[in-house]
């Protein structure tokens, strides 16, 4: 049986290597997406904490009024 991949022709002996390559690609895709989602969530958490919750004076003073105008952001 012949398989046609990307316009080239391969014989049946190359099947195991091909299957392994596909499986590896699938796992990389899954882990990459998860890592991105975790990284995004962590970055959002750090940015939100810095802007709305930290007591670092330059940030606190600059965004003080904003914090008090957002209904639920705790300040001093």
């Amino acid at each position: 049986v012949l398989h046609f991949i990307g316009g080239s022709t391969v014989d049946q002996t190359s099947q195991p290597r091909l299957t392994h390559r596909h499986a590896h690609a699938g796992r990389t895709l899954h882990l990459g997406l998860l890592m991105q989602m975790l990284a995004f969530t962590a970055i959002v958490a750090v940015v939100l904490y810095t802007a709305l919750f930290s007591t670092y004076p330059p940030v606190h003073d600059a965004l003080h009024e904003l914090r008090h105008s957002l209904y639920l952001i705790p300040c001093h």
Partner: protein
Amino acid sequence: MPLSAVFLLAALAGAEPPSVSLQTSPRGEEIRATEGLTHVVLEVRDGVGAPVRDASLAYVLRAPTRSRWISTDVPVVEGTELLRGREQLSNGRVSFDYRFPLRGTYLLTVAVTPEEGAAVNRVFAVRVGERSGEARNLAVLLVGLLGLGLAFGVLFARAARARRVPRATFLGVLLLLAAASPARAHDTLQVRAPGRALARDASGTVQASLEVGGPVRVGVAAPVRGTLVELATGRPVPDVLWEIAVLDEEHGDSIFRSVFQTREGSFVRHHQFTDGAPHRVVLRARPAPGGARSFSPVEVGLPVRVQAIQPPTPVVVRTLALLVGVAGLGLVLGVIISARSGREAA
């Protein structure tokens, strides 16, 4: 009116305990947190409706208790004592102006102690709404976070399908932000020790003293003491009409104002400064109408720097988790939407 009727009314007035009523301006449902002063009037009338004069009125104002899930912007103040005072009733009423610091239901506990007869206790609930526009601002923030998550979810899912995953870049940005995070920053608001100020009247015969005791920090009601003494003898001046005002100097707002009378020439009341910012307490003294002692009005001012307190960690964690959760929800939705559209396209 026949004499018997007068005696009957007097007997009725003596038999029934005095009634206490509360009025606010603006009305309860129209009061907004930090939006101007609210005029609060406590009125005490006897059994026949006449104002009670020979009695003292003590009051305590407590802030709304903390909600389980969503905090206000000043959680340290929630559930704490804001004002405490005792005044001699003048024409059967006590009044003050106050800027309510946060939304929720305040409890105003009042105890009237007549010179004759039993004391009367009442608890009033004052409901204060949130500042106008705050709910809208929150909605904008939440929608923005949801949209941000959604956009990145779609982007990540598409990039992942195309195997263009710049994982190293994301991790680098994350590490950079973590290193630059001011998580170890400390609160540098200065704390000034409780102070005392003195002033004399124009003729130099009486001296007013104003003292704010410590600790002056958000979450605790600080004692505010005022005295007016004869300079020659050091004795308190009787029958003084006081006016006390608390100003937030950072915002230029008036926080509290009260006019009251004392017989002894001194008073102690408690006031919580609910913002960690420079304040100023101003005290004016002048002779009470019909008072025995005449003197020139005297004014004394005292700057008060208030120590800010960091919000409780559980409140910060809960609120941050809510906001990050909304962004995370958008992210997951974005990935799902992108995955479905990708399957349909295939």
